[in-house]
């Protein structure tokens, strides 16, 4: 019989087929999940959530598409076999504009529409030695517009509870633009503003794991005029970015990636991604620290409330706590 994480266990997870008409059985849509439907997967499995955040056209959806594509190009990727996905249709739609069948002469990615808000893509992965059970992974794509509104408004930022829930907050910054005289200042300022807004709004727990991905590294190399100069550029970016985060989160990694490098680039597709997908799937999900959850001060006469307030005062906010 099946193990808890084996495919049969996922019978219990959402999007079950149902009989819609007398002669038809409706099957799961295969489209990306909304927040609500993904929560069922989260409950049914210890599923890590990877949140992709960045301005419009920074490469979030291309990263997603290239992950799905990487599994189609060989017998494994990053040491994993792809054991399936509940969002295959969504992945395929995102890959379409990079495929020859689209008729395009330059690979692109259909953008996440503003109305899409936050979309969750699902992957089932298994170590190729099969010694561990199937691992589920949810990768959330936050539309550039949602990102903008969160940067522009503290209230909107507070609504993005997924930032607190995510096991990995992945900030994508367009390195092609960072390396450009024309766009450097704008790109850097916006990236920095997001970090500042998140930190000021206490969006991260002390154990938060932050991955800063410098995307479109093939373009950055071309702009720098070669790999060696690009390495110097990378060092400077790392110093600057880590300074902003230092001491405020559990872990920060800053790496260059090229999800779908230009065909003249020496970089391979999904450049830099295998190490990340390995850790996203392999590391244990973050444990929400109960010490950080504080209840409002008790003003009630209920016996239980008074008992709790007296016996475990640490559970409650002190005067002056936010």
């Amino acid at each position: 019989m099946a193990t808890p994480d084996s495919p049969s266990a996922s019978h219990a997870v959402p999007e079950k087929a149902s009989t819609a008409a007398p002669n038809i059985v409706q099957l799961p849509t295969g489209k990306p999940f909304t927040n609500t439907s993904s929560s069922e997967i989260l409950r049914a499995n210890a599923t890590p959530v990877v949140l992709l955040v960045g301005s419009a056209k920074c490469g979030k959806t291309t990263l997603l598409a290239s992950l799905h594509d990487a599994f189609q190009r060989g017998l494994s990727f990053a040491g994993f076999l792809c054991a399936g996905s509940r969002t295959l249709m969504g992945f395929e739609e995102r890959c379409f504009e990079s495929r020859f069948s689209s008729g395009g002469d330059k690979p692109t990615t259909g953008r996440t529409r503003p109305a899409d808000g936050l979309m969750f893509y699902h992957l089932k992965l298994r170590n190729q030695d099969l010694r561990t059970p199937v691992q589920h992974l949810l990768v959330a794509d936050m539309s550039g517009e949602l990102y903008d509104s969160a940067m522009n408004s503290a209230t909107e930022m507070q609504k993005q509870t997924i930032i607190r829930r995510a096991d990995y907050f992945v900030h994508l910054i367009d390195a092609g633009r960072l390396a450009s005289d024309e766009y450097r200042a704008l790109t850097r300022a916006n990236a920095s503003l997001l970090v500042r807004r998140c930190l000021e709004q206490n969006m991260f727990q002390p154990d938060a794991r932050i991955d800063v991905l410098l995307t479109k590294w093939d373009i950055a190399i071309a702009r720098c005029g070669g790999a060696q100069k690009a390495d110097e550029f990378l060092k400077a970016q790392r110093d600057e970015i880590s300074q902003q985060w230092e001491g405020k989160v559990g872990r920060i990694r800053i790496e260059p990636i090229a999800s779908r490098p230009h065909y003249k680039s020496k970089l391979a597709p999904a450049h830099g991604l295998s190490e990340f997908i390995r850790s996203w799937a392999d590391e244990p999900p973050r444990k929400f620290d109960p010490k950080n959850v504080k209840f409002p001060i008790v003003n009630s006469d209920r016996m239980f409330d008074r008992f709790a307030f007296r016996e475990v005062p640490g559970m409650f906010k002190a005067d002056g706590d936010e």
Partner: protein
Amino acid sequence: MNKLVAVGLPQTGKTTFLAALWHVTESEEIKGSLRLEKISDEAKHLNEIRNEWLSFQQVGRTVLGQEQSVSLWLKNEQGAVGEVAFPDLSGEAFEQAWTGRHWPTEYDEHIANARGLLLFVHPDTVKEPISIREMQQMVEAAIPEEAEADAYEAILRDSDRTVEPTEEWNPLMAPTQVQLVELLQFVHQRSKSEFPIRLGIVISAWDIVKNKHGDQYSGSAGAEAWLTDRLPYLVQFMRSNPEFINVRIYGVSAQGGDLSADRQALQRFERTAERILIEGPDCARHDISEPIRWCLGLR
């Protein structure tokens, strides 16, 4: 009753396989094959497709809405195997399951109760995930190597260029391997059988592969090697889900060759069943009943 279900996208050789199987089991031309214990009460469809096969014609494919319920009473060396239901289902229904996200209730019942599955793949209808980048690199390979600076210039020029695809997204354009993985995920979700289910993958028109690649994909593991090269995503799914499916892979040419080019050679066989070509684990020559044995747990 043992129920086997043949699944696959349209025009992948399901009905031709069934026609040849009916002939082999009924004629007993192949030593050691499964044999017919008795003729089913309703054998009209089986007889019609067998007649086409025996006449060296393309066997008519099953159209959506005109599927036939077929059953074979089989026996092996040890005795009766029993009645094996083998519904001849239309490939269009499986294609619709991918595009329209539904399938007929009747199919659902077949899938729910299937003890084993045969999944058909035709080498000429496989859609591969060819990227624009791969095509560009193929073209590039024909051009003399350029200076690094020129390559950088081209990268920067393209980075500023916006393009629109000329085709609209249509789920039918998705690679075959992705559609088949989704089909197996549907089976997993709808099946009421005890897991793991036995799955026989039949690469049909195997003569095409042999003609094109010579000995590259030969022997009992040849079909698996071909599948690994052409549909690696499907192979990953199979290997990573042993709790759900137990798989064997066969290369089968139910017609034995090209009905136009090889017609005369095919007609020269004294025993018609000997024109059948099959390669895979435990396969005796020409014994097209081997995948059925495997799926029924007789191996």
